[in-house]
C-alpha cells in the first residue's frame, strides 16, 4: 500500500478508536454526556432549520418581509410574535442559529486543522519552527484582536459565510496551537515513542500512528476552544452592530431587536430566547471540554476537585 493510503486507513482507524472511546467516556462522565447531547441537539436544530422553516412559513424565506401581520404579540401561531416588517421572529431566530453555528463550526474546524499542523511542526520538529510559533502567538496575544476584528468588520460589508469563517479562524488558531503543542511535547517523551523510533518507524509514522491517536481528545478540546473563540468574537461584534448585514446571526438579531425598541416595548421574549440559545452553545461546548479534560487529564481532576 502506498503512503497516502496508509495514512488514510490509520487516520480512519484512530478516528474509529476515538469514536468508540468517546462513546464510552460519554457514559462515564455526566458532563461530557450532557454537553455533547446539548451540542448535537443544537447542531441538529441548525441543520434542520430549512425544513422547519419550510413547514412553518409554507415555503417562504424567513427574511421575507410582509408575510404576516406586523408587530404581532406572541401567540400560538407566532410563539415569539412578529417584527415591524411582518416576519415571524421564531423563524428568524432559527435561521440565526443556523448562521451562527455554520460560522462557528467552519472556523473552528479550519482553526483546529491549522493548529494541529503547526503544533506538530513546532512541537515535534522543534527548533526554528518552535521559535516561529512562539513569536507569532506572542505577537497575536499583544495585538488587541477584538478591535482588529472590528476594523475589518466595519469595512468588509459584503462578505460570504465562508470568508467570514476563514477570517475568524485566522484570529483563533494560535490559542488552539499552543495547547496542542504542549500536549505533543509531553507525548513525544513517552516510552512507546522511543520504542517506535528504535524499531525504525519514520517521523510521519510516529506522528500519525503513535502520537495522533493519543492526541485526539485534546484536538477535540482545541476544536471546542477555537469554536467558542470564533463565536465569542463574532457575537461580540454583532452585538454592537458591526459586520455584514446580510448574514443575520444570533448576535446580530439581539442587536436588531434592541434597536427596534423591543426592550422599551417590553417584548422581552425574543431577546431572552436568542440570548439563551447563544449561552447554551457556550455552556454545552464548555461542559464537553471540561468533561474530556477530566477524563484524559486526571491530574486536573484532583485540582478542580469536581
Amino acid at each position, binding site marked *: 500500500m502506498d503512503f497516502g493510503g496508509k495514512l488514510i486507513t490509520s487516520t480512519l482507524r484512530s478516528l474509529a478508536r476515538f469514536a468508540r472511546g468517546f462513546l464510552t467516556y460519554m457514559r462515564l462522565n455526566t458532563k461530557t454526556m450532557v454537553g455533547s447531547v446539548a451540542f448535537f441537539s443544537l447542531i441538529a436544530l441548525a441543520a434542520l432549520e430549512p425544513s422547519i422553516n419550510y413547514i412553518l412559513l409554507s415555503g417562504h424565506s424567513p427574511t421575507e418581509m410582509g408575510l404576516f401581520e406586523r408587530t404581532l404579540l406572541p401567540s400560538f401561531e407566532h410563539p415569539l410574535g412578529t417584527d415591524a416588517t411582518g416576519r415571524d421572529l421564531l423563524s428568524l431566530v432559527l435561521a440565526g442559529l443556523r448562521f451562527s453555528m455554520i460560522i462557528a463550526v467552519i472556523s473552528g474546524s479550519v482553526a483546529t486543522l491549522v493548529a494541529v499542523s503547526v503544533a506538530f511542526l513546532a512541537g515535534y520538529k522543534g527548533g526554528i519552527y518552535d521559535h516561529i510559533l512562539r513569536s507569532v502567538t*506572542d*505577537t497575536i*496575544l*499583544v*495585538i*488587541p*484582536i*477584538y*478591535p*482588529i476584528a*472590528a*476594523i*475589518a468588520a*466595519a*469595512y468588509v460589508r459584503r462578505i460570504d459565510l465562508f470568508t467570514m469563517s476563514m477570517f475568524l479562524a485566522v484570529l483563533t488558531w494560535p490559542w488552539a496551537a499552543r495547547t496542542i503543542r504542549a500536549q505533543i511535547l509531553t507525548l513525544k517523551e513517552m516510552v512507546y515513542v522511543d520504542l517506535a523510533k528504535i524499531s525504525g518507524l519514520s517521523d510521519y509514522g510516529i506522528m500519525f500512528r503513535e502520537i495522533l491517536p493519543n492526541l485526539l481528545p485534546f484536538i477535540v478540546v482545541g476544536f471546542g476552544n477555537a469554536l467558542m473563540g470564533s463565536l*465569542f468574537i463574532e*457575537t*461580540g461584534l454583532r*452585538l*454592537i452592530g458591526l459586520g455584514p448585514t446580510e448574514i443575520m446571526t444570533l448576535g446580530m438579531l*439581539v442587536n436588531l431587536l434592541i434597536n427596534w425598541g423591543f*426592550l*422599551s416595548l*417590553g417584548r*422581552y421574549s425574543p*431577546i*431572552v430566547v436568542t*440570548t439563551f440559545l*447563544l*449561552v447554551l452553545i*457556550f*455552556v454545552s461546548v*464548555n461542559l464537553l471540554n471540561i468533561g474530556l479534560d477530566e477524563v484524559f487529564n486526571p491530574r486536573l481532576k484532583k*485540582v*478542580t*476537585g469536581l
Partner: protein
Amino acid sequence: MRPLVLYVTKRVIAYVLTIFLASTVCFFLFRLIPGNPIGAYISMLMAQQSYLPGAEEARKVILEYKRVFGLDGDLFTQYVNFLKEIILNQNLGPSFINFPKPAQVLIAQYLPWTIGLLGFSAVIAWVLGNILGALVGWKKDSNWGKPIFYLALGLSQIPFYFVAIVLILVFGYMLAVLPTRGAYAPWLVPDLSFEFITSLMLYALLPSLSFVLTSVAGWIISMRSMIITILGEDYLLFAEAKGLKRSRIFMRYALRNALLPQATGFAMSLGFIFSGSFVIENMFSYPGIGYLFGVAIGQLDYNTVQGILLISIFAVTTANLLMDLLYPLIDPRIRYQR
C-alpha cells in the same frame, strides 16, 4: 556580563521589538482596508458648509489635507513619517473626527472614563476574586464553599456581554431602576457635587457589574485551584507542626505563594480589558476609548484608531515587562538567568 544585566537587557530588547512589530502590523492592517478617508472627510465638510469648489481648488484642498493628515506619498513614506512623528514629537497626527485636535489629545479626553470604569472594575474583581477563591480553596469541603464555586464555574463559562444583556434587561427595563446609557445624567454638569458623584456611580453600576461578575468568577476558579495545589505542600505541614495558628498559615504561607501567579495573570488580562471595554462601552454608550474607537472606525479616522491601538499594545506589553522584572523581587525562588 552579569546575569541580571543580561536578563534585563534581553527582556527590554524583546519588549521594544514586540511593540514595534505589533504597531507595524496595526499600521499596515488598517491601511489595507479599502476606503477613502480624505474624500469622505471633504464631502462631509462640503455638506456642512454647502460650498462647492472648482476642480483645481478641490485638488489643492485634497493635497493639503493629505499632507496634514500624514497621508501623502506611498505607504512606506507614510510609515516612516508616522514613526518619525511618534518618536520625535510624541504626536499621532490630527484626528479626523475632531479636527484639528491631535489624536492624542482626543484620546486623553476619553481615557479617564475607561480607566475609571474598567480599570477600577478590574482591580475590584481581582481583589474580590482572589479573596473568595482563596477562602473557597482553603475550606474546600465547607457548606458555603461549594455553591460559590459552582456559581463561579457557571458564570466563568459565559461571555461577559451576555451578562450585560441580562443586566440591561432586568435592571434597566423589567425593574427599570438603573440607567443603561451614558456616564452620568445628561442634565448634570460635571463637578464635585454630591448629586453628580451619585449619578456617576449609578450610571457606572451596570457596565461595571457586567465586567466584574464574569471576571470575579474567573479569578475565584484560578485562585481556588492554586490554593488546593499548595495545600499538599510539605511546608504547610511543617508550619502546622510548628504550632502556628491556622489564620497565620493561611495568610503567610498559602496566600502569599498563590498570589504570585495571580499577579502575572492580572498583567496578562489587561489586553482583555481593552477588548472588553470596546464591547461594553458601545453597549452602554459609555464615553471611554472603546466608544471613541467605535466612532473613529466609522469615520475612517486613521490617526485616532492607530493611537488607541498603540496605547493598548503599549499598556499590555509594559505591564508584562514590569511583571517579569519585578517577579524575582517578590518571589525569591526565581533568579535572573540567561
